[in-house]
């Protein structure tokens, strides 16, 4: 067992984990943050996307020990209390989800991208979300929702 100390959704976490624990397993099983999902286990579908120090990453192919000392944000940490993030509101307004399984990962990827981008084009958004698979929506409303977020 190894020590792990990190910040998750603004909260300091200390844990003892076995080294082969992925970040996804740590978040989903150990901490019970079930928002991000296992969709393939190989980093190909994006359902497990969370943010580490603001950047979108595929948590199922990252060892938890690698985020020692870093700040992780999951979907559960996006809203500010009762106030939803503009990306979440945009997804609601546009109906940019259906079954919802890919949605946490999709929103985290969208949010991470928007925080780094300035006045992105549709092409930029499609490139940013190419690693997040969705079977229900065909991405159409997801792209529109992401583009609609007012970046101040």
């Amino acid at each position: 067992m190894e020590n792990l100390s990190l910040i998750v959704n603004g909260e300091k976490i200390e844990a003892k984990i076995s080294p082969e624990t992925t970040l996804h397993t740590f978040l989903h099983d150990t901490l019970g943050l079930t928002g991000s999902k296992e969709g393939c286990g190989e980093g190909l579908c994006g359902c497990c996307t969370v943010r580490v120090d603001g950047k979108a990453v595929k948590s199922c192919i990252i060892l938890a020990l690698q985020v020692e000392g870093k700040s992780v944000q999951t979907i559960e940490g996006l809203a500010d209390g009762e106030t939803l993030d503009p990306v979440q509101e945009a997804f609601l307004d546009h109906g940019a989800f259906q079954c919802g399984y890919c949605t946490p990962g999709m929103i985290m990827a969208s949010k991470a991208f928007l925080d780094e981008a300035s006045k992105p084009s549709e092409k930029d958004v499609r490139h940013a979300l190419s690693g997040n698979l969705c079977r229900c929506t065909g991405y159409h409303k997801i792209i529109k929702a992401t583009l609609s977020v007012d970046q101040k």
Partner: protein
Amino acid sequence: MDNFKYFRASDVKEACSLLSRYGEEAKILSGGQSLVSMMKQRFIMPSYIIDVKGISELDYIRLVDDGGLEIGAMTTHRSLEKSAVIRENFSMLSNMELTLASMAVRNWGTVGGSLCSADPASDLAPSLIALGAQVTLSSENGERVVLLEDFIVDSFETILKENELLTQIQVPGKAALGCGIHTKFARRAHDLGIASVATHLILDKSDRDICNHIRIVLGAVDPFPQRYKRAEGLIRENKINEALIEEAARAVFEDCNPTTDINGTEEYKREIARVLVIRTVKEAIARARSV
């Protein structure tokens, strides 16, 4: 995943020391975007993991006096993609990065890790080889610098010794004088390519129909990324015209060694390689002439 002992190295010295001790049964973990997946599927089962991702002293992109680049091995693909220095001087790398995997994978995966995992369909290696890149391999015994084109020797195999760590990539200044184009052909835009080509060339200053220097590197159609010297020679030694480019592409068609698999037959891959060579060479020439 099987059990393993985990070490975290905070600097190069520590990493090399750990490698000297455990190198034989250890795997170096940087971004792990290839390695972790393979470990989960039990294709690779190391007894020791030496995590070098935190070695921040290896995370840099520097423009060197002669116009070349020094890139630390822990630089992420995303840093490469977003670097203004690279966009201005080596746009082939920026454009290539845009097609590599996905944003999230690029955020965590490192260029050093990518080169060392030596996937035959890698996009990074062919581009860097086309630029004439070299890599620095460090160990407790010192450093050695080798050409990247000599570094990868087979599918998923490099000449990296068990006690060595790849610490830096260098791109020579000369490369900045030329134009490079990378392209890949895949069923979907960000897939690993069925065939990929990186072409880099420098036209003669006075006669723009002469190419003094050219590298044509293919990915995915051989066990490891390689230069196509016969094709390069044809272009270097003759006046450039449509027929010459076709001839060079035909040489690639004949010389490459793709295998038939679920992504396509060997004949198809050859043909795609040929078409991509024509397209990249034409585009590189057009670009070079417009500068």
